[in-house]
């Protein structure tokens, strides 16, 4: 079957495979080596003893708590928003589209400053909240607000594109059979896009967990209240490197778990479709 390949062809093929292998190896190593280096810099003993450090634990729990809450808010508000946004045409839709994506390109530090001058104690809106005795900046609420601002596009974009690509004839059939728009959404659209939405949500969670710039600007750095894991890594790097490394490894593990979850969900989505 296979036609004879002249020796020069064989040589070419060999070079090709060699090149392909080299490319793959280069990319893999470039990405994997820094991660591996984290693990080589610290022994398991030190890692586990640092893990019991109250600063590490409080940062871990604070990060998980705030990221989960941010995610919940993004999903609860973002899902209906994305649906309404894709199904309706309204003036300024383009502008809203752009605004949704803005946090993706905006440096998080800028987001932090912007949030501070709006919601801070002497900020444009924050001063009125301050009169009511509500302070936002430098609280756990500020951490969550920063995370929502920075991480929401990952979910909303995904939801938007899912709803845009969704075959609307399913919805039309349901509507002709007498289902209300809300019921159609809840029983037809949502279940059929669920796995895609979940993978968007996982990405949002990951981004919220990694949020640094906006948090340190807007929420400050107070252990147990606003010092999330990335902030603890930053402060740890300047004092106790062990703590910085330990939290970095924790974050790597969590990121891996997130990526595996996304892979799994994407795979499931494919097999269902």
């Amino acid at each position, binding site marked *: 079957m296979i*036609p004879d390949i002249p020796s020069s062809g064989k040589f*070419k093929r060999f070079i090709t495979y060699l*090149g392909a292998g*080299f490319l793959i190896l280069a990319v893999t190593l470039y990405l994997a080596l820094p991660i591996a280096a984290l693990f080589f810099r610290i022994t398991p003993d030190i890692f586990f003893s640092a893990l019991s450090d109250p600063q590490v634990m409080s940062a871990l729990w604070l990060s998980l708590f705030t990221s989960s809450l941010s995610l919940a808010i993004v999903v609860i508000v973002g899902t209906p928003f994305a649906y309404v946004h894709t199904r309706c045409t309204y003036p300024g839709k383009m502008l809203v589209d752009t605004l949704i994506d803005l946090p993706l390109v905006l440096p998080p530090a800028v987001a932090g400053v912007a949030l501070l001058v709006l919601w801070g104690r002497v900020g444009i809106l924050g001063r009125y909240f301050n009169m009511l005795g509500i302070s936002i900046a430098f609280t756990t609420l500020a951490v969550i607000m920063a995370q929502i601002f920075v991480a929401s596009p990952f979910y909303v974009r995904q939801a938007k594109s899912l709803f845009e690509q969704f075959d609307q004839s399913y919805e039309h059939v349901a509507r002709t059979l007498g289902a209300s728009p809300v019921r159609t959404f809840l029983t037809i659209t949502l279940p059929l896009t669920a796995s895609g939405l979940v993978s968007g949500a996982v990405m949002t969670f990951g981004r919220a967990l990694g949020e640094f710039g906006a948090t340190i600007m807007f929420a*400050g750095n107070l252990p147990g209240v606003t*010092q999330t894991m990335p902030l603890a890594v930053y402060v740890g790097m*300047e004092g106790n490197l062990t703590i910085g490394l330990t939290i970095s490894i924790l974050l790597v593990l969590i990121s891996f778990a997130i990526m595996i979850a996304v892979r799994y969900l994407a795979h499931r989505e494919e097999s269902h479709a």
Partner: protein
Amino acid sequence: MDVQRNDIVMERSSKLNYILIAGIVTCLLIATVFLAGCTSNSAQAPQATATPAPATPAAVATAAATPQPVTTTAAPAATPTAVAVVTTPKPTFTPSSQNVVAYTAASLTGVSPKLASDFAKMYPGHKVVFNLDGTQALKTQVENGAYADVFISASNSYTATLTKEGYFVDGTVKPLTSNYVIVILPASNPANIQSLADLAKPGVKIAMEDKTVPAGTATVAVIGNLAKSTYTQAWNNSVYGNVVTYETSEPAVATKVNLGEVDAGFVYESTYTAAPKGTYLAITIPKKDNYLQTYTVGTLKGSTSKGAASDFENFMLSAAGQQDLRDAGFRPISTS
């Protein structure tokens, strides 16, 4: 049929081959560029020492009026001729001996432009580039291989660590200036703080530096001293309870106070003195309870322009440099 299919497969795979070969070529090109970059990097070191040659006489001539001995400028006439053979084009990012890269404690941020211009006045042709950050951050950067000529530390303990680790040229580390801790309030004084005792009032928002920041170390010591001498342990606990953020540099605390986002902040005296009048209110801390932070300046072993670095050090310790620091609210070493 079969033959035809094979042809198609062949055609396809040959197309794929071209793409792959193109990929390999690109890859090799990138690798070459990297290698070239590396080799030219290593060639820079002697090149950098060569550059001062023409500038040195100029500096000597123009700076003759100043009392500073300029003889310290690097590269006596012999070396440049020897190294001048290296013809690598001068990369713009290499710190030439005309440029002094000074890793400088963030509390000098305010005075740094004045220092830069006065240094250029005293040593024409020289230029200083400041990297301003908390000393703890700068220390980490230097320990991880960052290039710097001069290191100005706001903490004796970090200076000691770096000295022990062998980063400084022996004998170049000198005390530079000093600073006390002070409490600053926004000009509007939103929490109506009148004394140090008021810092413990419930609801007061305090910003201070993280304890890894030299100013933070000083602040912790000051609060401890005050609690012991004048106030109580309860005061101490309430003050810490009122802290809303531990910033990673001293100016960051001042910014939070300046914005009015917090009611009080622990900073250095110099920050209050150097700020325009009316920016902050201040509550001074009695000298007996205060913590005198000593700054040091030193030349790093890795510097490729030690001459210019030592010129900068001379300038910092000269009457002109000390005057700049005094004007910015720092306390000279001798009188403190």
